[in-house]
């Protein structure tokens, strides 16, 4: 369904060129949910924006392709890509932030994609907007309200309604639970999961929160410094991680019952402005070997779909 091949994206900044994504390969099958996990600066959001081709002006796709159903998105004209956006591929942003226009009522914003893609007009569009709002659990009192009158969870629901109103095939959810309280997070995850099942949507769920991702994703890809570290089914990632970074991420999850100490990851994430040679995680890695400094991202471990880019996977 979605196939990312050798994707390279960089940003021009005042302090130099930042490598946001390096040689990224990723396949997402139809109807599955791919969890994309990484710290901030790992390139996960850049990948989401690149798939929509709505990267900021200073970003540049250096090479590689993103294919959807065999069509390379990079080769599409601006107009054709615009027609795909919000219709075939939709995106859910962090709703707790300013993802909604403060001057427009909820129902008008939610039904706008129908008007943009000529699927409905006027009152008809609004009526369909209300239908979707009801479906995501927003009551009629909210429909004519403005974003500032809604709670974070309600805004997130509205943002989801807006993304699914056109019945897209692909949904990219970028940090949809960030900034919400834990109970609301779970409700949003459930809503996304139910919607995805019901409509057989192919979903990419981007988050820095690994435990949340394990609740929704069929497969998980772990990114670090713009590269893929490990990818596999959710149970493979959780039960038998092969990359030391994945292991560290799993160990930094707090345990409410508290029988193990949280171990953070020592050191700082790599700077996209000065990526070191060799393995990017090497300097924070306890299992680092001498060879790691000349590592060239050959697959270090592979069993079916489970891959890890590390030469010392046995040590984990």
């Amino acid at each position, binding site marked *: 369904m979605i196939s990312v091949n050798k994707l390279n994206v960089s940003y021009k900044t005042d302090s130099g060129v930042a490598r946001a994504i390096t040689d990224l390969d990723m396949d997402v099958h139809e109807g599955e949910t791919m969890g994309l996990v990484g710290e901030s600066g790992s390139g996960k959001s850049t990948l989401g924006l690149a798939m*929509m081709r*709505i990267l900021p002006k200073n970003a540049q796709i250096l090479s590689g392709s993103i294919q959807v159903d065999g069509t390379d998105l990079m080769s599409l004209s601006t107009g054709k890509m*615009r*027609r*795909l*956006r*919000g*219709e075939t591929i*939709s*995106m859910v*942003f*962090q709703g707790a*932030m*300013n*993802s*909604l*226009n*403060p*001057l*427009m009522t909820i129902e008008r914003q939610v039904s*706008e*994609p129908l008007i*943009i*893609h000529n699927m409905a007009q006027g009152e008809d569009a609004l009526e369909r907007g209300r239908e979707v709002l009801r479906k995501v659990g927003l009551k009629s009192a909210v429909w004519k309200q*403005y974003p*500032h*009158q809604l709670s974070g969870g309600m805004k997130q629901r509205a*943002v989801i309604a*807006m*993304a699914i109103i056109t019945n897209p095939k692909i949904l990219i959810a970028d940090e949809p639970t960030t900034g919400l309280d834990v109970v609301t997070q779970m409700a949003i995850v459930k809503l996304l999961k139910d919607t995805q099942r019901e409509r057989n949507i192919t979903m990419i769920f981007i988050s820095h929160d690994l435990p949340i991702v394990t609740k929704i994703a069929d497969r998980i890809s772990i990114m670090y410094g713009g590269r893929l570290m490990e990818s596999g089914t959710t149970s493979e990632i959780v039960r038998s991680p092969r990359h030391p970074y994945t292991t560290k991420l799993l160990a930094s999850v707090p345990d409410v019952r508290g029988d193990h100490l949280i171990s953070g990851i020592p050191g700082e994430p790599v700077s996209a402005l000065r990526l070191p040679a060799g393995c990017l995680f090497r300097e924070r890695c306890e299992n680092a070997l001498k060879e790691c400094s000349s590592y060239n991202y050959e697959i270090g471990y592979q069993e079916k779909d489970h891959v890890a880019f590390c030469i010392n996977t046995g040590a984990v």
Partner: protein
Amino acid sequence: MAAASYSTYLARRVILTVVSVFIIISFNFLLFRVLPGNPITLLYRSPRLTFNQEKALSIEFGLNRPEWVQYILYVKNALEGNFGISYYYKVSVTSKIIPALENSLILLIPATIISILLGIYTGVFSAWRENTKADVAVLQTAMAFYAMPTFWLGGIFILIAIYIGGIPVAGEYSVGSTSIINLMEHMALPLLTLVLVYYGQFTIMMRNSLRDVLSEDYILTAYAKGADSKRILYSHAVPNAMLPMISLIAINLGLMVTGAILVETVFSWPGIGYLIYQSIGHLDYPMLQGAFIIVTFSVVLANLLADIIYGLVDPRIRYR
């Protein structure tokens, strides 16, 4: 709920406006009492004014009474729209101010509308092409005109007009004429001067406001919906970018009346600005008081208008 809170919001604004108006009236009284000069000796420009004559005049104008009595009478009259008799023209101040105000508005209303529209248009043009040569050119031009002194630019236009010939450079009508064409010919240069001096600030404000809005998350959301540039700009970005413009426009509506002093003086336009300029020379206190009250009222009313518009267009305001 929305309607009720909007009316309390409005009521609060109106009360604040009334309080401001009262303060303005009082301040205007004070201001001219502390100015140097004796209005009576100025009124009759004769060094041979006798003590008795001076006293008689003091009684006629009420200047012999205690200051607080003068103040109460002044406030009472001001509220009735009576600002007294002009020392210089010897007619009621109101009868001079009203036609002058009309003349000013004939010039200022179109100048304001044109400069706001031009400012918004060039600001949007610039923001959408941020950091391109077109953006820099539009912005530099706007800033250059904004920085020019009004009287200087007006003077330059007069020089050019005289050199070319055929364009009137002073007054509102030619002697004996009352035709609209004649009025518009006379208006051309002062109008052009006002528009050029004023539009730049709207350009800069609109450009910066829109540039900030264009980097907001909800603009990215609009892109993700598949909206084209036209929809992004006019349905999402410009309405949001207009919010800070409302205050700027309101402040300028008031200030334009004062700004008109320069343009009206340079082009001898018989408006309120020109009247103020002449009355300063005549030490005509009642006239100045009346004119300043009109000017400050226009600032206060413009602010009230801005508050009303804010409450209508920005749903967040009503709930504060």
